[in-house]
């Protein structure tokens, strides 16, 4: 199972596009990538989940950890997600109140 992780700079934000399934097997790679970006001084990160087919609580935990870390640097981690099946996981866990979730990368970068 592969996890695609592509990084792109866009108007002062770092966009991390994730593809594939985020679970206990692949989440460590997402976590490592976020750690790497933070250590490079990227404090405004947009995680694009549009290419994600599956995300469970392990993936949520990594995103929450990333948000927490970025906030401690006065940065932010926002999300791009329009897929109902992925949005649902954020809704059930109440994390829609914790994350800013945008419809497009442009909105997220601007927001």
């Amino acid at each position, binding site marked *: *199972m592969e996890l695609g992780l592509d990084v792109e700079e866009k108007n002062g934000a770092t966009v991390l596009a994730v593809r594939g*399934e985020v*679970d*206990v*097997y692949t989440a460590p790679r997402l976590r490592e990538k976020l750690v790497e970006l933070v250590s490079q001084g990227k404090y405004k990160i947009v995680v694009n989940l549009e290419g994600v087919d*599956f995300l*469970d*609580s*392990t993936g*949520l*935990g*990594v995103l*929450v*950890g990333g*948000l*927490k870390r970025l*906030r401690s640097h006065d940065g932010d981690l926002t999300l791009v997600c329009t897929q*109902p*099946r992925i949005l*649902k*996981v954020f809704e*059930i*866990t*109440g*994390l829609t*109140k*914790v994350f800013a979730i945008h419809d497009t990368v442009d909105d997220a970068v601007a927001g």
Partner: protein
Amino acid sequence: MDPVIELEIPARAEYVGLARLVVSSLASGRRALPEERIDDLKLAVSEACTNAIEAHHEGDVEERVLVRCAEAEDRLEVSIQDRGKGFDPETLPEHPPVTDPERLNFERGLGIPLIRTLVDEVTFEPSSQGTAVRMVMYCDPALELDVDIDHIDHIDLTGLDEA
């Protein structure tokens, strides 16, 4: 007896995806479960398998997790059994409300609440031998396939001659 399908995997993270695949493939074979509910079940299975795997020693391939699916007329039952140390599902720590800034300190502990929300029924059966998590999804008979070909088990390929 209802048809039972069993998948036994090593207690390793890399096999959780296989458990999801087997359960969601069985669930989509049953046309009586709408796609959205299949996604719910898939997520619940992922959470339960993740916990089952974490309950074992790391990386020992002889530790096994059993995923057992029973396909009844009106429901699909999935049980995830591990041989870990067991736990008490009633005494798990509560999370602060999501609006509380403290919430960010809780990166974990979402799995069991998710399972409870996603499936129609769940029971946790911990013991000193390990834990079994039994989950039930009820099917909507209105969605059942019109054609029932389940009973065609033997096919007579020579029959074209009699057409």
